């Protein structure tokens, strides 16, 4: 029988028994929808993670000054460690091989004022290399440069959030802000940055839009530390040439720091890339489990199709007998029923795709969970549904084809 005729006959069978066809499809619909939803949740998680780690720099090693209480600080100082210092950064730069750049930063939190507006902000004293190590983007104006740094100029670059609070929609460039009772000129504004809401290793989550950058030299001149025991700087960011060497280089850095801090454990070394890989591994297990669940539900869907089709074949014994009597070959009957099974599963697949995509979009809309739908997942889920249709339609179709025409025609 011609192919298109087959399809028409199959679709006819589907439409004639709408409700039953729908029930049969349910398993496929849910299976496909769940595959797509789960893959998109997984993909969304992966992308969030990558974005998060890209902010910190995939080729970076971050050395963070530990937050100690006064007692702990006293103890450590007594044991000769001065805490994280510019000297540490210098040594790392000169001694450790494979290091591309080193940037140091010091931080304090204070109020910043402009006219009648005030904002609480983290002031970060930085070295000019900073913008090349961390994934932050300049919006308007210019960033802290060598000149600002060498001349200890009182200039600052505002984070998008703090700029909006202090200046609303007015242009802040060239204007003055009061940081901790000192006037600074605004030379640039950063682009708005999405916040990462989780802690990465020992790095606390924060909103970088409330940061203000000033040259580190100016910082050290102008801002006195409240606590004389505090370390000179709070963070050193080391950028390496190649991510393969990350572990190796971090070991060397730890060695340097250990010596310079006299075996005091007052700093933490965070390697974002390694953390990313770790998270990736965990996620793979999770994805596998989700995949297994989805696969099982597809399988159940297939069994559902098979059952319904077996029942359908029985009910249509007479019809099959008639078709055989007027000249249908066994293959004609087989293809009719396999086509029906495939038609059911494809229709179920299409509905499942629509459901799965809608589900993913809804999840992103109403919860914090990120989803990202990749085209391959749609094709994968759809392809599987076709496969299920063919596999589970085969047995019933074979049964139908093997019915003896003589007996079938008389079947009541």
């Amino acid at each position, binding site marked *: *029988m011609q192919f298109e005729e087959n399809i028409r006959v199959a679709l006819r069978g589907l439409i004639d028994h709408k409700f039953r066809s729908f029930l049969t499809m349910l398993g496929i619909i849910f299976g496909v929808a769940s595959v797509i939803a789960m893959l998109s949740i997984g993909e969304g998680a992966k992308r969030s993670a990558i974005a998060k780690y890209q902010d910190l720099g995939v080729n970076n090693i971050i050395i963070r000054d530990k937050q100690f209480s006064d007692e702990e600080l006293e103890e450590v100082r007594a044991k000769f460690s001065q805490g994280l210092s510019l000297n540490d950064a210098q040594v790392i730069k000169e001694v450790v091989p494979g290091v591309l750049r080193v940037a140091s930063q010091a931080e304090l939190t204070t109020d910043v004022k402009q006219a009648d507006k005030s904002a609480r902000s983290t002031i970060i004293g930085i070295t000019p290399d900073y913008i090349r190590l961390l994934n932050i983007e300049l919006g308007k104006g210019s960033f802290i440069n060598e000149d600002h740094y060498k001349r200890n100029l009182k200039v600052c670059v505002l984070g998008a959030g703090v700029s909006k609070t202090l200046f609303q929609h007015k242009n802040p460039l060239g204007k003055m802000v009061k940081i901790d009772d000192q006037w600074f000129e605004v030379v640039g504004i950063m682009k708005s940055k999405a916040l990462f809401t989780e802690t990465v290793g020992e790095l606390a989550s924060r909103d970088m839009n409330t940061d203000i950058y000033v040259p580190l030299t100016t910082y050290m001149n102008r801002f006195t530390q409240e606590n004389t025991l505090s370390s000179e700087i709070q963070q050193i960011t080391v950028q390496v040439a190649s991510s393969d060497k990350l572990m190796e280089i971090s070991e060397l850095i730890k060695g340097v720091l250990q010596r310079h801090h006299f075996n005091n454990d007052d700093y933490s070394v965070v390697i974002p890339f390694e953390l990313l890989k770790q998270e990736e591994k965990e996620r793979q297990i999770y994805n596998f489990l989700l995949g297994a669940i989805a696969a099982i539900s597809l399988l159940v869907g297939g069994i559902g199709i098979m059952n319904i089709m077996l029942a359908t074949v029985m009910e249509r014994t007479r*019809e099959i007998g008639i078709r055989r009597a007027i000249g249908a070959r066994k293959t004609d009957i087989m293809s009719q029923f396999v086509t029906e099974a495939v038609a059911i599963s494809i229709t179920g697949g299409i509905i499942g795709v629509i459901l799965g995509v809608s589900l993913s979009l809804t999840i992103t809309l109403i919860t914090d969970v990120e989803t990202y739908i990749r085209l391959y997942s749609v094709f994968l889920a759809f392809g599987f549904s076709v496969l299920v249709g063919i596999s589970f339609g085969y047995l019933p179709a074979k049964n139908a084809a093997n019915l003896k025409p003589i007996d079938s025609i008389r079947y009541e």
Partner: protein
Amino acid sequence: MLIEIKDLYKNYRMDNVEVEALKALNLQIKQNEYVAIMGPSGSGKSTLMNILGCLDTPTEGQYLFKNVDVSTLDDDSLSAMRNKEIGFVFQNFNLLPRMSSLYNVEMPLMYAGIHKTERRERALKALERVGLSDRVDHRPSELSGGQRQRVAIARALVSNPGILLADEPTGALDTKTGDEIMLLFNKLHQEGNTIILITHEQEIANFAHRTIHIRDGMIHSDKPNDPILVTQKISALVSR
């Protein structure tokens, strides 16, 4: 010779008992004959019909149809034979209830791979021959018993088969409608078709030109019907 059956045996296995349904059967049917096969229940007439209709193959012996030995054919070839050479007409019509008359009649041509346009044309012609041109889009449920049987006959005719094989064609119809159908068969016979009628009713067998009696799996008698009686019967109906 259209049909030649030589020394045919057909055995069945039923509940571990070997049943000889047909024994040492010999039969010849020429082109354009009109034959009635009669016999009581269990006589083997159904088995003979199945073999004639290529729905079953003999255990022993030969069945030659247009000089082709059907008894050695495989399943696909038998299907092809049924498609092209056998036009079945059943007691219960056996139409697909959800399809139109036209679709039902087109079906054998679909399985023959005939293209849509030609198919439709031939189906319409077949329906015309049985007098149902005005009912082509009706479904079986919208037709009377007699009309349904006509559709079934049109379906049987559409491939221009070697034989029309009718199994109790009037069994589900009232006398008047049954007579109309027999008149139709008569017309088709005059137009050149070969008709084999399976029946247990003498009245119906009397429409044919030759009656074969089967009993206990063997041919009991094989005689031509009185042509005068046949003509009388037809005229009586036509004048009504």
